[in-house]
């Protein structure tokens, strides 16, 4: 690699090694023919993948996790995008306070949020676990929805909307025909980040789960505490593969530069 910044380049390479190499170990051990989670793997087989797909707690937890992540993402966008518009384009008094409020879940420890929800909603109001989990995850994702769509909105030229109005579009028409299409990469990336955050979340899910509704990371954590076989590595590999597929789709449809460009610029 030719570069004029040797320090930055070395750091980047070191970063990649630190991030990727442990994952490669997990992937390699998932294909082992042996019975224990050990490197190097003993032989090659797909038996632990078969085992993972046959293990019903994992399968149902995967469905639960996907369900929760999808619903929470949609909710967070449904709340976050209008809030972002109000913050950036509306004549809202105390914009800074509102934005701070919606970004605060980034700073407040998740365990505190989880405990508060547990106390107030599950114990206090005797709500079901699922709606409370959904509320918790949605709250957790609001900062992404507000921040990432906000970044792409801040970059968009406000006179584009004015141009649409001038040409005869009502405010609603201008929003749907011009503003929303311009925000699409921002909303897409907010959704992607939210989905991944929810899917990976442990602290909230751990506190708010029920016997009937458990998410995949929590189930895997439970499983690892009891038995130490390569089925967890196989499950992790499946999730990794799913993530790669999502990433490739994102790159092909919108492009990483446009998805994350809103944050970097």
């Amino acid at each position, binding site marked *: 690699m030719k570069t004029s910044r040797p320090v930055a380049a070395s750091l980047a390479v070191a970063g990649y090694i630190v991030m990727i190499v442990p994952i490669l170990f997990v992937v390699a051990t998932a294909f082992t023919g042996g019975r224990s989670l050990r490197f190097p793997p003993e032989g090659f087989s797909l038996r632990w993948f078969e085992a993972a797909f046959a293990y019903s707690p994992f399968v149902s937890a995967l469905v639960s996790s996907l369900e929760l992540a999808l619903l929470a993402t949609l909710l967070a966008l449904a709340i976050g995008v209008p809030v972002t518009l109000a913050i950036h384009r509306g004549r809202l008094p105390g914009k800074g306070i509102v934005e701070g409020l919606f970004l605060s879940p980034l700073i407040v420890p998740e365990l505190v949020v989880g405990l508060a929800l547990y106390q107030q909603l599950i114990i206090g109001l005797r709500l079901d676990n699922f709606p409370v989990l959904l509320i918790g995850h949605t709250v957790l994702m609001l900062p992404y929805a507000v921040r990432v769509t906000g970044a792409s909105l801040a970059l968009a*030229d406000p*006179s*584009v909307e*004015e*141009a*649409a*109005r*001038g*040409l*005869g*579009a*009502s*405010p609603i*028409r201008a929003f749907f*025909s*011009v503003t929303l*299409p*311009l925000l699409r990469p921002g909303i897409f990336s907010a959704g992607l980040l939210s989905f991944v955050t929810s899917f990976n979340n442990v602290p909230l899910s751990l506190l708010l789960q029920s016997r009937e509704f458990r998410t995949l990371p929590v189930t895997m954590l439970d499983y690892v505490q009891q038995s130490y076989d390569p089925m967890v590595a196989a499950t992790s590999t499946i999730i990794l593969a799913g993530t790669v597929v999502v990433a490739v789709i994102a790159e092909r449809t919108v492009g990483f530069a446009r998805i994350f460009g809103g944050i970097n610029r």
Partner: protein
Amino acid sequence: MTTAAEFVGVTQRFGDFTAVDDIDLAIPTGQLTTLLGPSGCGKTTSLRMLAGYTQPTAGRIMIAGTDATRMPPEKRGLGMVFQSYALFPHMSVAENVGYGLKLRKVPTAERTRRVAEALDLVGLGHLAASRPKKLSGGQQQRVALARAIAITPTLLLLDEPLSNLDARLRVQMRAEIRRIQAETGLTVVLVTHDQDEALEMSDRMVLMRAGKIMQEGAPVDVFSAPANRFVAEFLGYENFLTAADSSLLTVRPEHLALGSAPAAGGLHLDGVVADVAYRGVDRLVTVETVDAQGTTVRLVADVRDDEVTARPGERVTVSASDSRLIRLAA
């Protein structure tokens, strides 16, 4: 002369700042009116009030004889070209131009025809299918113009339309906009800070400063008789001196003569040549002299006669006939 739009006692305040201060202005139908002035003079705010993007704090805006003060922009039927062009990046050039017609539910066949007409008018028929991002700044500008014209607006509003173009293209587009205005017969309001642009393009120019109108009229009338020192300076006058009756005078460099025989009346001042700038067709000779009030002033004479000698340090007489002297309000 009929009036396409009118400002009646219009004021616009943003907090403590008065952007437009109680102006009255009529925009004549079928003409190109320029709002000219330095930044912060209220010209863009005036245009935005006319378009409906901001509402005046006080006063009324009349469009085609009806009170449009509280009318939202989409009901005004005006075409606006923004400084940033504000094209819709997710639509093709043709879709951009057809956007307003689609909203007006113009049938597809007629829409296609009118989009093609508007694009032909700005010479971009061949780029109908392109995305705005692929176009040069000058081409984007033309698309924005075509998009505004396609809806056959009652008024065409241009907000510093040429300021993002390079110098050569800017001069070309002046003539281009004039041609389009003549072909369509549209009433145009153009905002600019460039006095050359205003002088060259306007039927009528309105000079603004600090939210007030300083002077308005045909370019030739405003240029030959600036009302006050601000207008004169903004239009490029640089020779200012005080007369014996303590009124302020200005005179154009090409109307100052060096060393000519004193005629009756007019201006005669003895001075010293401070600087000579040779420019091929002419020389700009700066003469340091003292005006009737005893103040030292520098006057620039535009000398085209090769016979006239002027070297730095030489004593000369500057003169101008009385008819060339312009009296200014303070």
